[in-house]
């Protein structure tokens, strides 16, 4: 029984220390939350301004688009809260600090996950995600029954795990390629920038990219189609 809970207590010990280090610079921490919030809101403000002049983007109105974006932000918030370590461990491999994890008598992946958490980004993204969700949830014509709420929770858990696996894949490739930053920039960060838009507006090769290579479509687009009963891409 003790063995079962041991990883959790390890994780909490780490988190406690991490919180203390992060709170050393309070003003910086606060500004960091605001900065992340503003940066991510920029894209949303763009959508909002576009829809002041136009009615829809590819047949999706503002509420529906906000719903799509909200899933991206909510999953990302949990993602950086839990799995920042995975995102950043290619740097650890790169500068030779990875050895210390190998020497300790605990699972390497557990140590990597516990060693880092990006609280401020999580707050920034989470706030924006929640705001968008609250704005859109009631006006997209979805009946928030128990089954639907359950489906939403599973969607979010799935979205977090999909993105964490993408990170793990990129980070692990740094064992062989040493520096993978630009590859990750190219395939993950860039893709994320437009993952909030409906898949149907993009040309074919970008649709394929989002479905089969970096499967962002499964994070928000396909689940949103279930909630919104959208017929696009039906054929």
């Amino acid at each position, binding site marked *: 029984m003790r063995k079962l809970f041991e990883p959790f207590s390890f994780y909490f010990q780490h988190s406690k220390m991490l919180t203390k280090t992060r709170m050393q*610079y309070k003003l*910086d921490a606060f*500004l*960091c939350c*605001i*900065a*992340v919030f*503003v*940066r991510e*809101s*920029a*894209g949303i*403000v*763009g959508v909002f*301004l*576009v829809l*002041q*002049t*136009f009615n829809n*983007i*590819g047949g999706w109105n503002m509420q529906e688009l906000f719903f799509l974006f909200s899933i991206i932000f909510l999953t990302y918030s949990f993602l950086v809260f839990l799995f920042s370590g995975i995102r950043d461990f290619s740097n650890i491999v790169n500068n030779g600090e990875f050895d210390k994890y190998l020497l300790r008598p605990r699972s390497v992946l557990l140590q990597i996950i516990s060693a880092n958490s990006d609280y401020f980004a999580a707050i920034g993204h989470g706030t924006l995600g929640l705001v968008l969700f609250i704005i859109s949830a009631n006006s997209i014509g979805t009946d928030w029954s128990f089954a639907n709420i359950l489906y939403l929770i599973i969607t979010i858990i799935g979205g977090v795990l999909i993105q964490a696996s993408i990170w793990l894949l990129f980070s692990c490739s740094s064992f062989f390629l040493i520096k993978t930053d*630009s*590859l990750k*920039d*190219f395939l993950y960060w*860039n893709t994320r*920038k*437009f993952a909030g*838009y409906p898949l*149907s*507006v*993009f*040309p074919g090769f*970008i649709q394929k990219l989002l479905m089969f290579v970096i499967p962002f479509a499964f994070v928000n687009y396909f689940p949103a189609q279930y909630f919104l009963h959208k017929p696009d891409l039906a054929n």
Partner: protein
Amino acid sequence: MVIKMNPYIEYGKKAFAKNLVYRSDYIIGVFNTVIMVFIQVAIWRAIYGSNTQINGVPFSYVATSFVLSICFAAALTANDFVLADKVLYGSITTELLKPISINLCIMADTIGNNLFKLIMQFAPAVIISGLFLGLLPPASVLMLLLCVFSLIFGFLIVYYISYIIQACSFWFTNVWSLSVIKNSVISILSGTLIPLWFLPDWLAAAIKWTPFDVIYFAPIQIYLGQMNTQEIIFTFAKQIVWVLLFAVLGMFIYKKGIKKLCIAGG
């Protein structure tokens, strides 16, 4: 007093040469820019739907404006962390002892980097995305030249806004947050996210009072031949006023800051 330009030209050359070391970074940089242009144009094609023009703006203008503004924004950047890193890590103390101006060094460094990006990134990115997305030719050779000139001033505006942020590093130490907020504001208001023709009227009127519309978007309007002589002169005047204003403000903050420079350790 004659300023010796040689050391600064060397700084610029070094910055240019440093970029040559990371080849894969450079190739991926080009791809990144091209993909961003494709995405924006795809989204706007969906917005346009079957319309060929909206509010009197044909789709080809929108495509051209995205090709140019995203490529401009990628090539004419100012690194917000040159001075800030020197303050953070304390290397500014040795820089201050050298008999050259630290501000001109930063300028030289930035120009070196940007020349590299213009030749090696901007040109291929514009050619690739232009070929696929239908870049319109400039209205005339004169307009092309005026566009290039106004871009130089546009770059100076970006540079001095960045300089103000950097000068704040004497107080904040870590200017990452300020830099991110600044970049977000510029990306919305300068037309790289949404062409300024389509902003709601109240916002379009407000932007006229800010420097953001003359950074990338005014040069594009000149390129497309959308401005008459009077408007072009007004654009240049506005750019010069903003450059001077930001430069003076930046210098003032720098002068204040250098007096309270505080470095931990070393």
